[in-house]
C-alpha cells in the first residue's frame, strides 16, 4: 500500500466518521441523562430525507439542514413522550421510531418526487461543499505534516469541522457546566436530582432535544454532503454502529471521537478495496461490506474492556408519592 492510498483512506475516514460522530454524541448525551436511544438510526434517516428534500426545493443547503434538524427533533419528542412522559419501554419506542422513519421517508419521497423513494440529485448550491482550510495550499509540500493537513484535514464540508468542534463542546458541557453535572446526575440517580429541586422530566427532555439536533445535523450531512441526495435506507445501520462506538468509548466524548474514527476507517477500507487479497485468501466484497457490522459485534462483545453504562439508563423515573 503506497502513501497516496493511505492518504486517500484517511481522507475518506474523516468524511465517513462524521455522521457516526454526530449520532454517537447524540446517543451519549441522551444515555448520560438516562434515556436509551435505539432510534438514532431513524432520526439520521428522517433528517437525511427532509434536508435533501428542502435543499432541493429551496436551493439552499442551510435551509435543508434546518428542516432536517426540525424533523429529527420532532422524532426525539415522540421518543420523549413515550419514554419520559408515559414511562413506556425505551427500547420499543426507539425501534418504532426507526421503522417510522424507514416507512415515512419512502412514502413521502415517492409522493413528492416519484423517483422510487429517492430525492432528485442535488446540485452544488444545494449541498455543503468542500472547504479548504487556511494555508492548505502553502504547506502541501512539507513532508508528513503537509499531506496530513492539506489533504486529510482540509477540504471537507463545513459539517465535518462542526462535528470536530462538537466534541470539545460536549465535553465542556458535560463536565464543566452546572447543566452537565445535573445531566449526568439524572442518568445515575434521578431521585437525588429530584430531591435537589431540579425537574427530572425537564432535564431529560432537554437532553433528548439536544440529541435530536445532533442527529439532525448528522442526517443532513449524509444526504447533502456525503452524497448528493437522499436514497432509501441510506443510513445503513450507522445509528446502531454509533451506539456501539458510544459503548466502546464508555460514554465519554473524546474517546467517542476515537471510536467513530476507527469505524469510519473500517468503512473507508471496505469502500477502497471491494475485495481484499490477503495473499492466502481473497476476502470477497460481501465480507468487506459486512466488516463494519462484524467489528461492531466484536467490540460489543467487550473484548476491549468493561463498559459500565449510566446506572439509571432505561428506567423511567417515577416520582415518589
Amino acid at each position, binding site marked *: 500500500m503506497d502513501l497516496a492510498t493511505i492518504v486517500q483512506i484517511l481522507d475518506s475516514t474523516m468524511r465517513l466518521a462524521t455522521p457516526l460522530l454526530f449520532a454517537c454524541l447524540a446517543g451519549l448525551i441522551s444515555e448520560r441523562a438516562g434515556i436509551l436511544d435505539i432510534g438514532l438510526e431513524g432520526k439520521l434517516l428522517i433528517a437525511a430525507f427532509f434536508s435533501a428534500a428542502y435543499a432541493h426545493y429551496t436551493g439552499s443547503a442551510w435551509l435543508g439542514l434546518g428542516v432536517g434538524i426540525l424533523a429529527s427533533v420532532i422524532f426525539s419528542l415522540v421518543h420523549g413522550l413515550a419514554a419520559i412522559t*408515559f414511562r413506556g419501554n425505551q427500547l420499543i419506542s426507539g425501534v418504532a421510531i426507526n421503522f*417510522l422513519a424507514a416507512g415515512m421517508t419512502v*412514502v413521502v419521497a415517492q409522493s413528492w418526487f416519484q423517483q422510487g423513494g429517492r430525492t432528485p440529485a442535488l446540485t452544488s448550491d444545494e449541498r455543503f461543499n468542500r472547504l479548504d482550510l487556511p494555508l492548505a495550499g502553502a504547506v502541501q509540500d512539507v513532508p508528513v505534516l503537509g499531506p496530513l493537513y492539506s489533504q486529510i484535514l482540509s477540504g471537507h464540508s463545513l459539517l465535518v469541522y462542526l462535528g470536530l468542534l462538537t466534541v470539545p463542546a460536549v465535553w465542556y458541557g458535560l463536565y464543566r457546566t452546572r447543566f452537565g453535572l445535573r445531566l449526568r446526575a439524572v442518568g445515575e440517580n434521578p431521585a437525588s436530582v429530584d430531591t435537589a429541586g431540579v425537574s427530572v422530566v425537564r432535564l431529560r427532555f432537554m437532553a433528548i432535544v439536544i440529541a435530536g439536533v445532533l442527529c439532525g445535523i448528522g442526517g443532513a450531512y449524509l444526504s447533502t454532503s456525503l452524497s448528493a441526495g437522499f436514497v432509501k435506507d441510506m443510513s445503513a445501520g450507522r445509528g446502531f454502529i454509533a451506539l456501539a462506538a458510544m459503548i466502546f468509548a464508555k460514554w465519554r466524548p473524546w474517546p467517542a471521537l476515537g471510536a467513530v474514527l476507527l469505524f469510519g476507517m473500517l468503512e473507508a477500507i471496505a469502500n477502497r478495496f471491494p475485495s481484499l487479497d490477503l495473499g492466502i485468501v481473497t476476502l470477497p466484497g*460481501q465480507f468487506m*461490506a*459486512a466488516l463494519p*457490522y462484524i467489528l461492531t459485534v466484536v467490540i*460489543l462483545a467487550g473484548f476491549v474492556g468493561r463498559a459500565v453504562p449510566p446506572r439509571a439508563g432505561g428506567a423511567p423515573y417515577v416520582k415518589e408519592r
Partner: protein
Amino acid sequence: MNTRAMPRWADVTLVPLISLLIAFALSGLVIMAIGEDPVRAMVLMVRGALGSSYGWGYTLYYTTNFLLTGLAVSIAFQARLFNIGGEGQALVGGLGVALVCLFIPWPNWWTGLVAAIAASALAGAAWAAIPGWLQARRGSHIVITTIMFNFIAFSLLNYMLSHMLRPPNSMDPATARFADALRLRRLADILEPLGIAFSRSGPANVMLFVALAACVLCWALMWRTRLGFEIRAYGHSQPAAHYAGISSVRVVMLAMLISGALAGMMAVNSVMGGPQRLVMNAVEGAGFIGIAVALMGRSHPIGIVPAALLFGFLFQGGSELAIETRIPREMIVIIQALVILFTGALDNMVRSPLEALFMILRRRA
C-alpha cells in the same frame, strides 16, 4: 402498581384495540397527507386481501410468516430479551431450506418438508445463538448485536447466492428451482377433498397448520413446562430468578435458540411454499413485522394469532394498494411502526385513562 384496576378481558382486548385504532387513524392521516383517500384505500385493501379466495390465499400465506416470526419475538420477550434479529435468522433459515432442498433428493414433499423444517430451525437457532451467548456471557446489548447480525446475514446470503448457489447459466442472485416433488401442498389441494373450492394461485400451504401447531406448542412450553416457567420467571425479575436457582445463561441461551429456530422456520413457508427457490428478499421484512405482531398479541402464543392475521391482511392489502393507487408498499412499514409505538411504548397513554374509567364505573356499581 395496582393490577386490579381493570378487568383482565379489558386489558387484553380493549387496550390493544384502542391502540390499533389510534395507529390506523394516524395512518389514515398520512394517506390523506400524500393526497389519497383513506376510505377508498381501506375498501381496496379489504377487497384485495379478503374479497376472494385468491386474496385469502395470499393473506394466509403472509399470516403464516408473521405467526412464526411473531412467536419468535414473543418467546424472547417473555425472557425480556428484545430479539430484533428475526429478519437475519429467517434469512439464514432460508439458506438451510435451500441446501436441504437442492442437494438431497427427497422422495416426496412431506419428507422434504420435515427435513426443511429441521434445517431451517437449526440454521435460525445457530444464527440467534451467537447474540444470545454474547448477551449471556459478555453482556453485549442484544438489540444492537441482533441488528448487526441482520446486516451480516444479508451479506452472507448475498455471497452464497452470487458465488455458491447460483446456477452457472443464470445472472440473478438466486438458487435454481427446487424439484417438483418438493412442492408443498397448497390450501386448494387440502380443501378440495372436503368439497371446498379455493383459488389455486394463492401460495398459502400446509405451513399454515405447522405455524398454528407451533403456537399451541409454544403455549404448552411457556405455561405447562418447567423451562417455560423459568423463562417467564427470568423475564419478570432477574434477581428473583437468580435467587430461585435459575441459571440466567441457560434461560437466555434457550430462549434465544427457540426464538431463532421459530424465525428460521418461517423460511420454509416463504422459500419452499412461495417461489420454490431462495431469492435475496425471501423474508420481505417479516422478521421486523414479528415485533409488531408480538407486541399486539401481548407476547402470548395464542394472542399473536389474530395479530398475525391482521398483519397478513395489511401486507396483502398493501400490495394491492401499491398496484391500484399511488400509495407505495412502504405504507405498511408506517402502520407497523405506529402499532409498535402505540401498543409497545405508549401503552400507558391508552391504559391510564381506561383504568380511570373502570375505576369510576366500579364505584358507580
